[in-house]
């Protein structure tokens, strides 16, 4: 039966995460963006909420809650409302954990999942995107070839969050025409983490280039073992996660520009009293809500383990456009004030622009 009401438990999680976003993230996000660093203390505080471990069964060291894309979407939106860089940092281990949880072999789950359920934050990450024109996750340039009992990986990756500190990496490579995941532990020969990248936005999140030169991993490290992984589903979970985060970033920009428009007086009245401004805000509000509902619907399909490529792709395309429209307008509503770094809207515009590029960099 159609319903738009989160469960009581989901509402509790949302309240908790919202509190964290406003008390912790919103206090330091500008500083983090300027310095390119996130204090460990914030990450630790976030980690204590158990956002990832709560959806991992007790057998693998988690607290045994249900793993739900809807819950993940709700969390993603609230966190991203606080700050996108921190959100991607906090949820980075999920990039490794959720595919292993859903598609990993029993051995892989037993071996790796407890590592992301530790009491202290330990980075684990994924490498999907490649630094080339015409990049397509379904036709990767990085290749994996079976050689005896080992896979040999070769290729270049970029936008790998926390690659320098991660103990575990899930690297996607082309194998016999399909995209498959390979678990690589830190220090494996042939795996070389490059310089930290400098991007237009998400500046507080450390991302790296990565090169794989004849990097050998045991055959058992192929995600899902012989069965392999459901790469479509991984991409769909990522599309839904990013759509939720885009909604959060857009909501932040919308609220800020709405409040500004009600305070800023021009020609004797608040600029929000003019339809030119008010209609921009109305459209922003409508598109944010629409994106959220579409995100929920795609997440709902994922939770039912149904094929969701169409829904997830539609909402991701919609969210990519929506977040740019909303954050750009937020800057526009603030005018010159929106362009200076004293106000946050320019940061949200830079972060918002990235969503179309970020496929694979977050997951629910």
């Amino acid at each position, binding site marked *: *039966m*159609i*319903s*738009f*009401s*989160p*469960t009581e438990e*989901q509402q509790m999680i949302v309240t908790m995460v919202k509190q964290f976003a406003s008390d912790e993230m919103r206090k330091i996000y500008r500083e983090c963006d300027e310095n390119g660093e996130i204090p460990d203390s914030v990450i630790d505080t976030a980690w204590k909420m158990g956002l990832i471990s709560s959806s991992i069964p007790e057998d693998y060291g988690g607290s045994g809650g249900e793993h739900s894309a*809807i819950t993940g979407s709700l969390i993603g939106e609230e966190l991203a409302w606080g700050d996108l860089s921190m959100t991607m940092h906090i949820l980075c281990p999920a990039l490794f954990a959720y595919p292993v949880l859903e598609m990993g072999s029993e051995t892989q789950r037993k071996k790796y999942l407890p590592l992301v359920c530790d009491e202290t934050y330990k980075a684990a990450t994924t490498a999907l995107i490649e630094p080339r024109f*015409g*990049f*397509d*996750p*379904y036709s990767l340039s990085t290749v994996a070839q079976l050689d005896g009992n080992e896979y040999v990986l070769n290729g270049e990756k970029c936008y790998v969050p926390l690659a320098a500190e991660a103990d575990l990496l899930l690297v996607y490579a082309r194998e016999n025409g399909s995209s498959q995941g390979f678990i690589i532990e830190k220090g494996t020969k042939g795996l070389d983490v490059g310089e930290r990248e400098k991007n237009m936005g998400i500046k507080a999140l450390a991302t790296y280039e990565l090169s794989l030169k004849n990097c050998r991993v045991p055959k058992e490290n192929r995600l899902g073992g012989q069965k392999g992984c459901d790469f*479509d589903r991984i*991409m769909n979970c990522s599309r839904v996660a990013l759509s939720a985060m885009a909604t959060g970033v857009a909501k932040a920009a919308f609220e800020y520009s*709405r409040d500004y*428009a*009600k305070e800023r007086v021009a020609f004797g009245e608040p600029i*929000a*009293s003019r*339809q030119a401004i*008010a*209609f921009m*805000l*109305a*459209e922003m*509000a*409508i*598109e944010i*809500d*629409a*994106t959220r*509902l*579409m995100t*929920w*619907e795609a997440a*709902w*399909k994922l939770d039912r383990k149904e094929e969701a*490529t*169409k*829904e997830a*792709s*539609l*909402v991701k*395309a*919609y969210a*990519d456009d929506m977040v740019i429209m909303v954050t750009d307008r937020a800057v526009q509503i603030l005018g010159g004030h929106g362009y200076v770094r004293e106000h946050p809207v320019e940061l949200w515009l830079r972060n918002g622009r990235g969503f*179309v590029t970020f*496929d694979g960099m977050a997951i629910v």
Partner: protein
Amino acid sequence: MIDFELTPEQQEGIKAAHEAAKELFRPVSRYYDEHEHESPQELIDNIWKRRSEGLFDLGMDATAALRIEELCWGDAGLFLCIPGPALGGAAVFSSGTREQMERFLGGFNEGAPKWGAMAMTEPGCGSDTAAISATAVRDGDEWVLNGEKIFVTMGKRALEDSDGFVVVWATVDKSAGRAGMKSFVVPAGTPGMRVEKLEKKLGIKASDTVTIIFDNCRIPFENILGSPEVRKTETKGFRGAMATFDATRPIIAAQALGVGRAALDFIKETLENEGIKIHYGTPRQKLTALERDIIEMEANYKAAKLLTLRALWMMSQLQPNSLESSMAKAKAGLAVTKITQKAVEIMGPLGYSRKYLLEKWMRDAKINDIFEGTGQINMLITARRTLNYSRDQLK
């Protein structure tokens, strides 16, 4: 729990409505578009005979909205010809007493087919409904109505072709502004009321749109919906009108969705026949221009649909839904206008030709961005609610 699963009843309703749309509406769709003002009598008789099936009971909840979308997928103009109290019924339902509901709506399933209509717009006021100049003056046990109403959807069917009624908005005290605005039920055949000027329109030509003149038209005192009292601090009457819109706007949005989806389905069917596939999962920068268009159209359709279902869900939960209703209506009206126009472009010479229904759907779609509050009025309401501004703070 967030859930998008349709109940078995909803699934069956959609299926049956889709079949009916295909079987009853589509074959005569072009004919009644080209023969404006000709009554689709056979179709109406057919629907009337099948009324016990419940298929054409047009309520105001999600279940009804899903059926309405399907019927409008068939034909949005013919949909309006389905006998029933329609918007007039919505007004009675949202501000009438139990006795009035019984009296005015009770007979709608018996005897001959009947229609209801709502008269709000005047030559001098459209979206500015508070500026209404039609008057209602009390005279003993009666109200005396005077004024001119235009753009009354299905007014002719309600008042000339059947024993229906029209809900008229009029002021009982001009000096009281919004507080003086009340609504009245005027049954067909009431002396002093006449239907004039049958409009010729861009689309939804199977439906009639008329002018109604009230010239010392007398109705019983009990035909007022809501309280007859005027308290300057209270704008109940006006709020009654607005409450009606909260219920009807998502329904108009559902009608819009039907037309938009007709165009989308037509394009997708054509592409399939041509062997063209839409690769949804492809990265943005690698999509073809056509794929981008289709994805944008489909996403906009979905956005409008979910906003519509949310507004209706909130109503069923008895939550205030003015904001969400206006959001849904604004989005759906604009989305289907764009979807159908884009569809005509994509189909090229086939899209523009009257050989196919697509060009008709583009014309039909446009009304959804106009009636029951234009897109702009719904944006204005959305903006006011979003900003927490009064009508004086945001004009």
